[in-house]
């Protein structure tokens, strides 16, 4: 596509108002979900599938502009973190209140319908076209999502995303987080206590340094993506249901623990011998974070992780074990109306292939991501985000194959994402993203065994992202 054509397209997209690749979490399509399930052994990359979202539903409920809760959606401010932590129940809009004859409150309904819509339109161009395909892919829509949620009762609220994937034509449940929250004094300090029911480990997290709501917030679903991903890094999204309990003590210590169990969307129930990658029993999940504020600075450092035993096929027999341990940080410095944010995570996964499926009995996989973002008011954001994955070579897990394969059997990849975002309105984003790979599936040159270079997958991704 010529630059002139591209500019015309961008202008058209601006008028139409659509945006990036989608998935309010990048896990929108059933096909992609199936791929993810299959990928407990290795595959999937947040860089290929990330698209996160927020919802004007909450703006309508709270009467606050998007910028009160987001520096740059979906990145949360202090107000946004507090809103989520407290169960999405903060409200300033009018409500219908019901009481029993004894005067006890029995109903509290928001008079504003808790529904909003996200439309994304995108243009993707890789440095070298995929073999036999047309380069310069336009998706209209790239993703279409309906959000609902907010306050259900004074202590219960939620977030539910329904996503239409235009590539499969299917509509499905995307990220989900329903929670109960209350307050207590513990050791004479204010403490928020809560329970979250969700379908994606870390989707309930209030920081943008963990996988579900981490950068990139929108990325191409049609460009090649590195093969390997750890379990906690989106592989279980929409494949599990989990219940976690959390506590934030004195705004200084956050702890959370819970269990996840297989609940794949679109699969026949009960799960039986035809199922794949079913979790044996439950998966423990844990999270600990220590936020602090000084001057114009905010910093949270933390750790999270999970450990799973997975049946390669069926629901009985030997299992493979995956243990993920991660650290993360979220930093923000304010410069008046401008701000600088830094989010990063490092994930270490130990894999034990007792049930087979890999060449080695044990493997490791390590993922590092960091994004530095400078926000000019609410209108512009500039981001640089290096990323890296390294791991054990395994000729069974990472096999040669055109574009998506690995000639060397290595999962290694690294590169950097540069992004400029323009938001003429708080609910309309134009995203210009370039992903540059130094190494892809193990090599810089001929990485797939079919002569493709890592840099051939460098991707220009232009997105319009509209929420209303």
């Amino acid at each position, binding site marked *: 596509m010529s630059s002139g054509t591209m500019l015309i397209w961008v202008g058209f997209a601006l008028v139409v108002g659509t945006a990036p690749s989608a998935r309010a979490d990048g896990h929108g399509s059933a096909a992609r979900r199936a791929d993810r399930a299959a990928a407990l052994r290795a595959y999937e990359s947040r860089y290929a599938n990330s698209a996160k979202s927020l919802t004007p539903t909450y703006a309508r409920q709270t009467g606050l502009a998007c910028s*009160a809760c987001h520096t740059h959606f979906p990145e949360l401010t*202090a107000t946004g973190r507090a809103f989520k932590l407290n169960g999405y129940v903060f409200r300033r809009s009018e409500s219908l209140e019901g*009481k029993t004859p004894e005067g006890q409150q029995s109903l509290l309904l928001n008079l504003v319908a808790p529904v909003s819509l996200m439309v994304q339109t995108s243009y993707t161009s890789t440095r070298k076209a995929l073999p036999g395909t047309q380069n310069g892919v336009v998706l209209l829509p790239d993703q279409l999502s309906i959000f609902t949620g907010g306050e259900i009762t004074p202590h219960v609220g939620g977030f539910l995303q329904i996503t239409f994937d235009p590539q499969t034509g299917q509509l499905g449940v995307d990220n989900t987080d329903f929670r109960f929250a209350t*307050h207590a004094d513990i050791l004479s300090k204010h403490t928020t206590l809560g329970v979250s029911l969700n379908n994606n480990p870390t989707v309930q997290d209030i920081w943008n340094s963990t996988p579900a709501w981490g950068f990139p917030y929108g990325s191409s679903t049609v460009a090649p993506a590195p093969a390997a991903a750890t379990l906690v890094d989106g592989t279980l999204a929409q494949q599990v249901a989990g219940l976690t309990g959390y506590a934030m003590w004195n*705004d200084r210590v956050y702890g959370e623990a819970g269990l996840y169990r297989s609940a794949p969307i679109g699969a026949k129930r009960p799960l039986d011998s035809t199922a794949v990658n079913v979790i044996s029993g439950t998966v423990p999940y844990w999270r600990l974070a220590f936020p602090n504020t000084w001057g114009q600075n*905010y910093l949270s450092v933390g750790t999270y992780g999970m450990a799973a035993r997975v049946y390669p096929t069926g629901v009985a027999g030997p299992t493979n074990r995956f243990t993920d341990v991660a650290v993360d940080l979220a930093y*923000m410095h304010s410069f*008046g109306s401008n701000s600088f944010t830094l989010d990063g995570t490092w994930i270490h996964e130990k894999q034990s292939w007792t049930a087979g499926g890999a060449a080695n009995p044990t493997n490791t996989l390590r993922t590092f991501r960091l994004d530095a973002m400078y926000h000019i008011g609410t209108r512009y954001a500039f981001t640089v985000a290096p990323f890296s994955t390294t791991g054990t070579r395994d000729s069974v897990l990472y096999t040669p194959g055109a574009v998506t394969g690995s000639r060397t059997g290595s999962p290694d990849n690294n590169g950097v994402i540069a992004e400029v975002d323009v938001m003429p309105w708080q609910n309309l984003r134009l995203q210009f993203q370039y992903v540059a790979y130094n190494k892809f599936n193990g090599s810089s040159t001929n990485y797939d065994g079919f002569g493709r270079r890592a840099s051939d997958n460098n991707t220009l991704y232009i997105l319009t992202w509209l929420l209303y």
Partner: protein
Amino acid sequence: MRRLPGLIGSALLLVVGVAEAQINPIWLRADTAAKSVDFKLVAGLRDLNGGMNFNGFTRGGLLLTVPQGWTVVLQFKNQDQNLPHSVEVIADTSRLPVGPVPPAFDRATTGKLEQGFSAGQGTDVRFLAGKVGSFLIFCAVPGHGGAGMWIRLSISATAAKPTLTTMPER
């Protein structure tokens, strides 16, 4: 069955009224000899405006008047269970800022302006009311002040002692 609509009607009540905010005399304590005034400033004292209020007042509904030259101590505490809040004294303006701006007086802020103080937390803000004029006591957590979380401060050359009065909201 005829009673059912009545029961449903009595069970579903639309709340239309909000209790009137009142000034509590204990909020203000003046020391004329020392020319110092302590003002208990409570964020989220009531549910009004989703908790985004100071002492139950919003949009300039409360006016603190202080004689020029006095020392003002804002004893700030956040009682809002849901949201963090902060305080700074800013120049009066019809175009409320989205977030923090330079304060009108030296040290007339709580600090942690963007992040705010969570429930149960607070701090004292001490500054010299050195110049006459109209000012706002403003929550600088982004979006909160613009949503109405501010009250008024008047530094007067003629007032003999500090006072608290209600005002029409803007």
